[in-house]
């Protein structure tokens, strides 16, 4: 009997192609997602060296970062964005890679499209030139973001040269209060361990709180593993995972689905397996979370206050708080629920799925967006959009004064036309609040979809449970 292994250990071991003397490993990559921003130079590299894509059928491409979220029939206005998307289309065609164009209803953010199509499955290794590839860990797939050189390496060899990360277990115990979402849980985790807390680790999220989350919620948690510094996040697959996958276009079917389930069940962390680090977080203490600053670890509960640099634990921390306060245009000790916003962004690979939109519709129904606020809702994919419209959610949004858009990354990183103007303040369901992230000089507060919807209605950050 071999030593007990973690979920990460098992997936890793199952994908070893070859190990160099020093332990560096050539790891097989089962699936590769490709988007327009991080791939053109990789395809160019292949062309220059006369190399071919080894497994085009294991590769799926779509444009998400640069696509417009309105007036799509007019095409892409920005010439550079247009060229980048056209380049992806050409590269996909020349290399026999499936490409979902803007006109296809399956187009969307890569990390929403992969799970929707059943492209993402437990036990797989999945990579993409995008740090939020960690999202797919919600299925018990080892999924991580890579740079363009590694995109080229994956295209050419269907492998990557890797060194193994350490195992971290984050155990969420207790019970969550009503209205506390997956987003609040992951923000609370990042608050506790910091944006470098997971550096060098793959995090496995465990505990009943995680078990009770939907697949959508689990994706939200794993998505922001990268904001905690981890290479990847993982959740052991279970009945909810099979239920989600069943009938998806690329998922196994019939008898083979049953065989696959038996294999997937064998992946769970063995009893007695050792983690290099274990972090416990009590769910009972978590209330809705928001960020006040310019790092995803600048998290505070909605009943809290903007920090005072005077109370900083070190000079370095003091400087960093001062810098963030200046950028954010905030005074120390301001109650967080007094911060006024004029923009709201609901969407992204963190919170652009159907469950998120349903939650927003419950808040929006029968209410109105505050008159000084522009609030946009960007579904994560064309299929999310279609489903929302089937359920009549779009009517609720439009009636309440929300701006209902077409799918894409949109104002999460503002590479398309959707961006904040300098000093605009945004309640956002995305994943990063860096300086300039949503537009130069723009100020971002991260939160759950429910909280962003409530901010749209009140014109300020507010505990949606009090509406």
């Amino acid at each position, binding site marked *: 009997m071999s030593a007990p292994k973690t979920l990460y250990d098992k997936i890793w071991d199952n994908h070893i*192609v*070859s190990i*160099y003397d*020093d332990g*560096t490993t*050539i790891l*097989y990559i089962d699936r590769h997602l490709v988007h327009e*921003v*991080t791939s*053109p*130079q990789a395809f*160019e590299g292949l062309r220059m060296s006369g*190399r071919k894509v*080894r497994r085009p*059928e294991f590769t*799926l491409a779509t444009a998400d970062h640069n696509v417009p979220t309105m007036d799509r029939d007019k095409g892409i206005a920005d010439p*550079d*964005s247009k*060229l*980048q998307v056209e380049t992806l289309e050409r590269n996909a065609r020349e290399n026999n890679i*499936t490409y979902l164009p803007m006109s296809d209803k*399956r187009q969307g953010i890569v990390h929403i499209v992969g799970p929707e199509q059943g492209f993402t*499955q437990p*036990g*797989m290794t999945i990579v993409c030139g*995008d*740090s939020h590839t960690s999202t797919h860990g919600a299925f018990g797939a080892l999924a991580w*973001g*890579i*740079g*363009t*050189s*590694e995109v*080229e*390496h994956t295209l050419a*060899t*269907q*492998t990557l*040269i890797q060194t193994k990360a350490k195992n971290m277990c984050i155990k969420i115990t207790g019970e969550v209060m009503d209205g506390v979402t997956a987003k609040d849980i992951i923000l609370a985790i990042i608050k506790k361990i910091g944006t*470098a807390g997971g*550096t060098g680790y793959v995090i496995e999220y465990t505990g009943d709180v995680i078990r009770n989350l939907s697949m959508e919620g689990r994706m939200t948690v794993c998505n922001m593993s990268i904001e905690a*510094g981890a*290479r990847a996040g993982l959740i052991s697959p279970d009945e909810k995972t099979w239920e989600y996958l069943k009938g998806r*276009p*690329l998922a196994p079917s019939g008898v*083979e689905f049953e*065989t696959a389930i038996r*294999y997937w069940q064998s992946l769970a962390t063995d009893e007695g397996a050792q983690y290099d680090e274990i972090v416990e977080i009590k769910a009972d203490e978590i209330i809705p979370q928001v960020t006040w600053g310019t790092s995803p670890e600048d998290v505070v509960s909605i009943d809290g206050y903007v920090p005072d640099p005077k109370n900083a634990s070190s000079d*370095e921390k003091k*400087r960093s708080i001062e*810098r963030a306060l200046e950028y954010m245009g905030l005074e120390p000790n301001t109650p967080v629920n007094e911060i006024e916003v004029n923009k709201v962004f609901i969407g992204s690979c963190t919170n652009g799925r159907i469950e998120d939109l349903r939650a927003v519709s419950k808040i929006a129904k029968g209410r109105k967006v505050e008159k000084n606020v522009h609030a946009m809702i960007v579904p994560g994919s064309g299929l999310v959009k279609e489903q929302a419209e089937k359920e009549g959610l779009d009517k609720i949004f439009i009636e309440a004064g929300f701006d209902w858009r077409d799918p894409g990354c949109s104002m999460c*990183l503002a*590479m398309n036309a959707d961006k904040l103007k*300098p000093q605009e303040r945004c309640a956002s369901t995305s994943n*990063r609040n*860096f*300086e*300039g*992230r949503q537009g*130069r000089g723009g100020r971002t507060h991260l939160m759950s979809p429910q909280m962003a919807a409530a901010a749209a209605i009140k014109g300020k950050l507010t505990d949606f449970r009090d509406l």
Partner: protein
Amino acid sequence: MEKFNKLTGNAIPLRITNVDTDMIIPKQFLKTIKRTGLGEYLFFELKFDQDGNKIDSFELNQDQYKGASILIAGKNFGCGSSREHAPWSIADYGIKCIIAPSYADIFYNNCFKNGILPIILDEETVSNLQDSAENTLNFNIDLEKQNITYLENNEQKEITFEIDPVKKKCLIEGLDDIGMTLNKSSSISDFENNQAKKTPWLYRSEII
């Protein structure tokens, strides 16, 4: 890939922690389909204000740091997105070595693919080096010997650093990762044949 062995140059002290990839290269410059020419956009929004005026207090705008080939930064450098545009812009600007207490994982790996040496030293040492860098000293970095040497107040100083031996070898020899892996093509094929038996559904994927 460009080889890295020895480097001599002055260094820019950048006393900011958690420098993220959006700071290193803002998204408006990610629309390129080339790897080159990004150096002039490095730290663009720290170099210029919203009206396009130079921000004099920012180190990269100061004459004494012109031509610097080393960057000495705060901890968790390069956090955020996987964009390789970040190390491309750093290398294109002329910086071949970064010294910091820690790096974000993806950025750290990306450096080695682009001939940049990211050195890890403890916070106090990094802070002291930042002080020294303000005196426009020349630092000598020797990857083979794994040390940094410099002359300060007529005193010869030496700091040693640790680095993974494989990564060191790749930088020194400028190895082509893909070529190395392609030499193992038969192992990759063997792996695929075994995997197709064990988990055949992974090989049923058709064009959707």
